[in-house]
């Protein structure tokens, strides 16, 4: 035990003598978490809104409401004017210009409400949307914001659209009968005066968000209740920085894999410089050397991750303290699995270059597949199945449970078990490999 401790001490002394190594293990994660944190919504400072072109050629009331709603959106910013060359005063963008700007990559999307957007006789709404999906996240933000805004107007419009559709299909006279009948049926069963219903279906009054404003609200809510869009966030409400909290686990595991593979492959360097042989000729066993490497690596991994977490906490208010114990467990489990990965590579490789080459390749693949970079739901089903075979997946999921859901231990027990047992099995195998390998 004392020997392991002394060897461990040796690794620390060597490590702290190696300034570039310290820089890489700590500065790189810190810098990256700060940069990427700022992209995913950082530090309380308002993130940039996504700019889209907006052209409103319609005079309709609804179009004005939609425009006003979009104007006040926190996600997107409407660009309506531009300044042509050789001119000083900005002019409104028209449809042609909008298309051109999107084509040229000046903006990612343009929303057009054409002049027949919602004419007096229309039985539907007409939008034009031009976009350039060069950036997935941006496109999604734009589409979500527009859909949300429009959806909110639907309940006002639905009865009118329904009535107009009926007229299109049934012809004027029949449609009139349908309207009156419908009005009286609704009136009879829902305790509303039939006239109110008929009136609402004939004369659209925009802006009355509760549906029909002609009578008292109790009476008219009935129709607007037909579409009821209730949204409630269930997870992560209390998380002050969702963006960073979601990604930090993925980064954590990737850094662990890189750092701890490097500490494992340092056995090659120690062999090269002969210090390993000297140890092997002293009262030291191979298992002493491997154990000390193992403990050193895990402790380095834990310190590295907590350094990164502390920066995530300082800069982006990521809450690492309220579920600290579980976070620590996940960090240690992930670190164990990451060292085991480094050890198995080291036990198979013939040289340090081969080891780091192969390791880098596998780490990048595992990080991509396992969800370090983006959620694995983006992948086709079969890749998602493969992803579950990576240690990255289990680690990233466990970090999400702990940091994002603030889950208790039962929610991460399986992940932790898988990480530890993978570490155990892989280590056992690399121990056997080391006996016939190049290092010892």
């Amino acid at each position: 035990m004392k020997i392991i401790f002394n060897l461990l001490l040796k690794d620390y002394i060597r490590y702290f003598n190696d300034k570039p190594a310290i820089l890489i293990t700590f500065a790189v994660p810190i810098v990256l978490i700060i940069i990427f944190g700022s992209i995913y919504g950082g530090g309380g400072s308002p993130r940039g809104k996504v700019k889209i072109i907006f052209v409103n050629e319609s005079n309709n009331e609804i179009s004005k409401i939609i425009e006003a709603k979009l104007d006040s959106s926190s996600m997107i910013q409407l660009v309506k004017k531009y300044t042509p060359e050789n001119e000083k005063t900005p002019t409104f963008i028209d449809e042609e210009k909008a298309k051109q700007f999107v084509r040229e990559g000046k903006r990612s999307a343009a929303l057009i409400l054409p002049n027949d957007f919602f004419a007096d006789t229309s039985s539907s709404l007409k939008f034009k949307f031009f976009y350039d999906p060069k950036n997935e996240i941006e496109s999604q933000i734009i589409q979500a914001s527009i859909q949300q805004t429009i959806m909110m107007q639907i309940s006002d419009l639905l009865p009118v659209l329904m009535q107009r559709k009926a007229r299109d299909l049934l012809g004027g006279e029949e449609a009139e009968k349908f309207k009156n009948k419908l009005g009286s049926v609704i009136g009879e069963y829902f305790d509303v005066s039939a006239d109110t219903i008929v009136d609402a279906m004939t004369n659209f009054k925009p802006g009355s968000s509760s549906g029909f404003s002609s009578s008292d609200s109790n009476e008219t809510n009935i129709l607007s209740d037909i579409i009821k869009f209730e949204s409630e966030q269930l997870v992560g409400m209390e998380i002050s920085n969702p963006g960073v909290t979601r990604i930090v686990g993925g980064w954590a595991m990737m850094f662990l894999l890189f750092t701890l593979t490097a500490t494992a492959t340092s056995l090659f360097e120690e062999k090269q410089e002969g210090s390993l042989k000297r140890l092997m000729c002293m009262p030291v066993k191979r298992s002493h050397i491997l154990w000390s490497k193992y403990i050193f690596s895990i402790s380095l991994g834990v310190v590295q991750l907590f350094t990164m977490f502390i920066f995530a906490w300082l800069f982006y208010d990521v809450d690492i303290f309220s579920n600290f114990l579980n976070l620590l467990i996940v960090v240690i489990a992930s670190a164990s699995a990451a060292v085991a990965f480094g050890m198995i590579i080291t036990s198979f490789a013939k040289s340090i270059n081969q080891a780091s080459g192969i390791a880098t390749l596998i780490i990048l693949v595992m990080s991509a597949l396992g969800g370090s970079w983006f959620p694995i739901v983006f992948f086709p089903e079969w890749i998602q199945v493969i992803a579950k075979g990576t240690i990255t997946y289990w680690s990233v999921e466990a970090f999400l449970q702990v940091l994002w859901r603030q889950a208790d231990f039962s929610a991460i027990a399986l992940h932790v078990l898988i990480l530890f047992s993978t570490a155990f099995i892989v280590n056992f195998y690399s121990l056997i490999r080391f006996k016939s390998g190049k290092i010892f």
Partner: protein
Amino acid sequence: MLKISNISKRFGRIDALKNIDLEIEQGEFFGLLGPNGAGKSTLMDIIIGYHKPDTGTLFFENEIIIPEKLVTRYKFGYVPQEISLYQELSAHQNLKIFGSIYKMSSKELDRKIAKVLELVKLSERKNDTVKDFSGGMKRRLNLAASILHDPQIILCDEPTVGIDPQSRNAIFDMLHQLNQNGKTIIYTTHYMEEAERLCSKLAIIDEGKIIANGSLNDLIKLSEKRETIRVRKTSGIISKADFLKSLGDVIELDYYFEIRTEEKGKQNSELFLNLEKEGIPPELIELRKSSLEDVFLNLTGRSLRD
């Protein structure tokens, strides 16, 4: 004290050691002389337990050595042929780390470190990093790191390779001193001068086999019937190589042509005359008595070259 019995070792197709039998007594300065690739390091590695032999047994004080038990590792000190140190750490840090492996209180270790640093004359440089040391200094530290735990037997694998004569002499003195203090030393080398100067007992190893074994005198006797004449190579002499080779059994060494003769006296004076007639100045000619070099030559038909 240390008995090596029937040790063999193969690396793939190479027979590195073939049935080695040797016995080393307490207090001996035992030399293992052999050319490159003879198997010296392999034998040392097996003694320390770094390699497992394919066959054979090692005994230390009449007990079988089981390397896994690490017992002998406390009693042996191994100086590897390659510099085996943490290059980016200081001399003192190296000694502290390697010394801490042995069961010693840190006070005792500090005392030992001061002592060996004194012995290898690096006390003043103890806080400098190893990678800034000269070759000779690294060699000395390499030795120092192996004797911190006061081993009974010191195994030195070519501890003077690639260093200047001054450092070499310093290492000789240190080892001599250690031997005087009762340490048993096993020393491998391919310099016969070193073996002649240092060792009280010698074994000559070639192609994995011990070909001779005994005291220096015992070994020299093996070639006493020979005497050689050497002609130093100069540019003028090299042009006369064909003439020299016509004189008989001639071997071309790095710095000499060596003419071997069976008899003494008469034939040699005749040879001297012939050489003088050819215009070879007498200063370049020397008569040599037998040395380990000749023993090796005699036994293997090859020369032990640097």
